[in-house]
């Protein structure tokens, strides 16, 4: 959940405690997101330099990786996890696949925007969200619909 930004010692203390509580739950295999984080690390390792695909791809930037990390950390506990990849334009891609007619991909660019495309039966949905530290609620709803 997004938080109103604080400044002082009390705000920092509360943020630290909240993060500790979240990471304790994230460490559980039932509620955690480690498989997706492992894939993100693999993307960082394999795609951090230009031409990582042998066809002139752009390097994935620390900003895109960081935003992908924050996005994954903000998913609700026990939420369906995506497979993580990279695109030749340097974006990080998160993909939820349910069947050939139900899938959603979110492309995270280096400027803090989320571009999504969903296939829901015969409907095609796409658009862009500004990324503010947490996964937008509309995207969470789409992911739920795709994953049933």
């Amino acid at each position, binding site marked *: *959940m997004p*938080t109103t930004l604080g*400044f002082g010692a*009390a705000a920092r203390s509360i943020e630290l*405690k909240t993060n500790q509580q979240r990471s304790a739950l994230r460490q559980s295999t039932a509620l955690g997101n480690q498989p997706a984080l492992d894939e993100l690390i693999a993307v960082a390792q394999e795609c951090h330099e230009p031409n990582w695909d042998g066809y002139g791809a752009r390097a994935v930037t620390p900003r895109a*990786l960081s935003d992908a990390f924050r996005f994954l950390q903000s998913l609700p506990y026990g939420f369906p996890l995506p497979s993580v990849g990279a695109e030749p334009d340097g974006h990080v891609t998160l993909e939820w696949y349910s069947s050939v007619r139900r899938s959603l991909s979110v492309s995270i660019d280096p400027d803090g925007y989320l571009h999504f495309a969903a296939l829901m039966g015969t409907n095609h949905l796409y658009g862009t969200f*500004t990324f*503010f530290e947490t996964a937008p609620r509309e995207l969470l709803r789409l992911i739920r619909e795709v994953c049933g």
Partner: protein
Amino acid sequence: MAKAPFKFDLGETFRHLSKPPIVEAIIHWQARSQKEWEAEGLRAELSKLLPEYTTCDPMQQLQVDFAAEISEDEKPPLTRHQHQWHGYRLATKDNKYIAQFTRDGLAVSRRQPYQDWEEFSAEAKRVWQVFTSVAQPVDVQRLGVRFINRLESATFENLGDFLPDPPTCPSNLPLNELFYQSSFTVPGQPFGVRVIKLMQRPVEGQTQNTGLFLDFDVYTETPLSRPDEELDDSLKTMRWLKNKVFFDLLTDKAIALYR
């Protein structure tokens, strides 16, 4: 006895507290800048537009950078951290007002001693006008009003004097830490409320972490597409909600301490 259903009534007033336990009040506009910011140019502009804010420190955003080397024994990859400039933190000379300008929005904080809502919100709105001139955001994705309170005299032993619903201690085990977070929707209104209660075991030599922290965060559930027109009404409602929750979550005995 069952509690009465929530009643949304902006006409409901609340007692004035002459010594409110507020350690920080914040209004936060989450709004993406549509202008490219250049660090030195922005600093010069902010110091010209907000001369009362005599300190202007760069803010860095932490970026997780995963090291690309895999060691031969396949240990987990190392992570590095990079910092990237993403705005400025301004402070008035007395350090009572803090304004955080980032490309993702503006947060204005009022630190102790908190005076009153009118003064605080007027100052925050004045700084927001400066943000709109330097960032030209097209909308406000989220507006937040947050009040962090510290009830210094609360202890694990006397929590029942402060909270009508203190935590249950199984088998009368002594409480060692309290962390309780809950969030609420407001029926028929586009607002949410998050409440955190935090109490930590005192650390020897440290006094600023003692007592009970009550953190109220009221926020919009939908973007403000016309912030200039919607801001005043939204803030008024959010402040009312904050007061409603505050006075409902404390005992009369506790409130009497701050009158």
